[in-house]
């Protein structure tokens, strides 16, 4: 049976801090037994594949590298609709356009009622493996924030 909730990591493992979302979700998935009913999913740079990963679930938490104008390493929670994809004029299949995905999901009648995004401010998204120092220093905090968000969502 499909889990009712999902933690979805987005990013490219080979582009520096872009990997943060995937790495955080993967790290918490090692404690999956603490989160029954939660699927831990690495969606990579999946674009529209995200539509299927969220389909029919009650709640979803996205974890993604996000340029928010904050200090590198900062993490911020926001809801879809609370943010504009600045400078992104396209509905590219590689740009995560949450508004478009949500509209499509609603049309299909399968949009989760509860969604949140945990954005992590990058320092560098240049080719290469491994997080930069500011993100590495806060990595355990990111995992804790995701765990708390999931518990809140499940409890709510």
């Amino acid at each position, binding site marked *: 049976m499909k889990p009712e909730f999902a933690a979805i990591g*987005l*990013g*490219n*493992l*080979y*582009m520096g801090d*872009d990997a943060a979302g995937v790495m955080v979700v993967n790290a918490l998935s090692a404690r999956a037994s603490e989160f029954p009913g939660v699927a831990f999913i*690495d*969606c*990579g*740079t*999946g*674009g*529209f*594949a995200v*539509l*299927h*990963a969220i*389909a029919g679930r009650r709640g979803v938490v996205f974890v*993604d*590298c*996000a*340029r*928010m*104008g904050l200090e590198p390493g900062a993490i911020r929670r*926001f809801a879809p609709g*609370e*943010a*504009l*994809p*600045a*400078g*992104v*004029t*396209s*509905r*590219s*299949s*590689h*740009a*995560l356009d949450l*508004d*478009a995905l949500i*509209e*499509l999901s*609603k*049309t*299909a009648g399968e949009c989760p009622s509860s969604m949140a995004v945990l*954005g992590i401010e*990058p320092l560098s*998204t240049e*080719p290469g493996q491994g997080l930069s120092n500011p993100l590495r220093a806060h990595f355990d905090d990111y995992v804790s924030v995701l765990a708390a968000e999931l518990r809140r969502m499940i409890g709510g």
Partner: protein
Amino acid sequence: MPETLIEVKHVTRVEGHGNIFVRASDGKVQRVEWQVPEAPRFFEAMVRGRNWRDIQSIVSRICGICSVTHSLAATKAVENAMGIEVSEQTDKLRILLHYTEQIESHVLHVGYLVAPDLLGQKSVVPLTATHPDLIKTVITLHRLGNEGMELLGGRMTHPVTIMPGGFSRLPAEAELRALKKRFEDAVPLLEALAAAIASLAGKLPDFNRPTEYIALVNPGVYTFYHGQIGSTDTEEKTPIDKFESVVNEYVSPQSTAKWTKWHRDSYAVGALARFNLNADLLLPLAARTAASLGLKKGCCNPYMNSVAQVVEVVQVVEHGIRLMDELLSEGIKRESPCATPKAGNGAGCVEAPRGILFHRYEFDKTGTCLRANICIPTNQNHANIQKDFESLAPQIIGRGQDEARLLLEMLVRSYDPCISCSTHCLNVTFV
């Protein structure tokens, strides 16, 4: 007549960044360019020094849309270099996995990225209100591709089951039966999609330019996986191991990506190229779909590439059902792929949704990668897009800036280019 300047930075609804630049005065085009400003990502350097077992996982990250394709091309190249043979079962399952990616990618392109052009919208979002049934069909078909990839590849994107010699996980027969049922259930949806596209096909520009098309060819089958390199300009077939003599990569000052050419100044790859070289081998339903959409062998209208993609989705569903029938009647057998590394150099090739894709790797005796060469389909289409621009722009420049811009953008989109497949970091402004 005043000067006309069309400058599009960047073209929307494509993967990656490409620019259109046109300058005209007195109704005459002075300069027209397809520009590719995307930063290179150096995957060929990234795999150097890596173990032969890791190559397909690393290169799958080149693209979130055609990650299976890159994994398969890499795995075939590694197997070629190491002299590894695979079973018939592995072959069929890989082709089936590859088909699920063709479904996923083609439906995404036609349904989410091209349909808005044909329906006069800037994105797919408004279509959720005006054409909800079409969008539901697109989502269902796209999901079939994605979830087929998840079953056979272990994930929706960036597969983890493909390995040199076989698979690390095989589907259970019950899972394969369920997938076959979903393929069968998809047939009426494909007919609905084809009917919708047929009703809009008149909106595709009537632009024809004689073009060399290049794709895999293999006797008796409309191939995406095995075969040799074929061209509409020659009867001669070229072995995969000689692909460098076909692509003839060169550097263009207006592009950060390499361009290619063979018998002419440019050539095209992709669904229309495959169709033009293999149309006689389509299965019955796919052939009927092509006829209903007015697609004929020898078509040189690049806008029809999207129509060819619809035909190909029907083809892979039809052939996929046959493959699953064969696999189920033979029974899924457990396999334990194992191989020892050895020094070697090998090339691998598959048809990505966007066209023919080549990988080459060289290994030392420990299986450490010494060098790599990857030639992706979009690189092979860049020069052809430029040549199309040079032919099309003078024909349409008199129609006004907005219409000319739209037709040029639609032309780029028709190639379904995957220009970068790089990071997708969000840029966020809070409201």
